[in-house]
């Protein structure tokens, strides 16, 4: 498994192509939004990052369940990989959201449900990593990580609803939602195309990165096993 699989190389190339295309589309193809100006273009990648962040945390929960059912270490590697990726993507999502909010809402930060929830998600998965760090035995580490990932992924929608009951000012992009939210806008067909293309691109990017990160995880596991065997 040391050699890089052909399929992965192809996936790398496809991802690179799509990323380039998406970037070009954002800057050259998507129209300028009439009120917000250029900053609106951040939105395409911002939403894509947040989406991938969400996706990866859901995957973490699923990997947790799968680990507890099968006790197969592969699922632990998947869980750790997806949490790490989720943290990176979610961080970008939060920071870009904040940058977008500054000119539009006139503030870097608001305690709106999505912002707050995503921030709490980051904290949950930071706690996940700290929990793992505190446990030497790989089998127990995997078990506890899986349990915490499940607890975490269940608490996230509840967190969202709890803050949702406060009034939100985050624009609801898809669906009619509260139309009065400041900074919402109607997407032209071109905008929609760019938007969905970005989503697809970043989803592909996620799976590409996951593959790499899982390979890294397997390698780390081999090294850890070697160390344990030598310390015997």
């Amino acid at each position: 498994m040391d050699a890089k699989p052909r399929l992965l190389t192809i996936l790398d190339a496809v991802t690179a192509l799509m990323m380039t295309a998406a970037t070009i589309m954002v800057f050259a193809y998507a129209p300028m939004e009439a009120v917000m100006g250029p900053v609106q273009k951040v939105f395409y990648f911002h939403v894509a990052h947040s989406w991938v962040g969400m996706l990866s945390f859901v995957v973490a929960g699923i990997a947790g369940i799968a680990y507890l059912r099968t006790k197969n270490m592969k699922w632990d590697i998947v869980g750790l990989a997806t949490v790490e990726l989720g943290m990176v993507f979610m961080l970008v999502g939060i920071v870009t959201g904040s940058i977008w909010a500054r000119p539009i809402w006139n503030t870097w930060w608001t305690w709106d449900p999505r912002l707050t929830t995503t921030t709490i998600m980051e904290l949950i998965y930071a706690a996940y990593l700290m929990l793992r760090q505190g446990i030497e035995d790989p089998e127990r580490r995997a078990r506890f990580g899986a349990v915490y990932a499940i607890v975490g992924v269940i608490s996230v929608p509840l967190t969202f609803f709890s803050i949702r009951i406060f009034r939100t000012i985050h624009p609801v992009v898809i669906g009619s939602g509260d139309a009065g939210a400041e900074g919402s806008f109607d997407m032209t067909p071109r905008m929609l195309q760019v938007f969905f293309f970005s989503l697809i691109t970043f989803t592909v990017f996620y799976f590409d990165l996951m593959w790499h990160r899982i390979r890294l995880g397997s390698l780390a596991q081999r090294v850890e096993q070697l160390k344990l065997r030598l310390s015997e």
Partner: protein
Amino acid sequence: MMIEVRRLIKRFGPKLVLRNLEFNVAQGEFVALLGPNGAGKTTFLRILSSLSRASLGEVRIAGFSLPHQAAQVRQQLGVVSHLPLLYGELNAEENLRFYGKMYAVPALDRRINEVLKLVGLSQRRRDLVRTYSRGMQQRLTIGRAVLHNPSVLLMDEPHTGLDQDACEMLDGVLREVAAQGHTIVMTSHDLARAAGLASRFDVLTRGSIQASVQRTDLPEDGLLAFYRQALESATAARVERSAL
């Protein structure tokens, strides 16, 4: 057979702690499990006591297999580990009553009296366990383990941390327990102590049982020689294997 273990393998990550261990104990035997530190004695006992799972292999206790029939196995087991498993803020009687309820022991009050008498703590039954000496705690621990009349008693280094007198008293309790027909497996690294108690001696090293001898087959004062020989042959076998 009270305990039947077939081809037991336990790995921690890549580390093989128990390799193809075979172990059988008949009803009423008192087996001393000897071996150097790190041989896997404690791990093996934890698997027998259902606290840890085997990676591979078959474990049957009193006819029930682990881990599928863990609840039935647990009912048949009394366990003494190197920790007391007692609550310091409760007295002897309360500790026993608590465990008695967990095991659903019938006629609990009478049984508690019997057990306290057996381990010689009737006088101090109302004292908090945290005020007990190490030896008294250990005797109560054994009382706790036999409370529900288990058919199998597992003990991990029961003499650890006890002085000479406490050891003698503990041995007295253990002989009495053995005389009641419990099947006992005890790990120990104290050969002299084990020699005075057990009816059978097994040497566990490098993750499997290397040798086993009945007390009756043992020459006078021959346990040490037997133990040394078992360890040496195990080392020799390993050297041979790695030379190949």
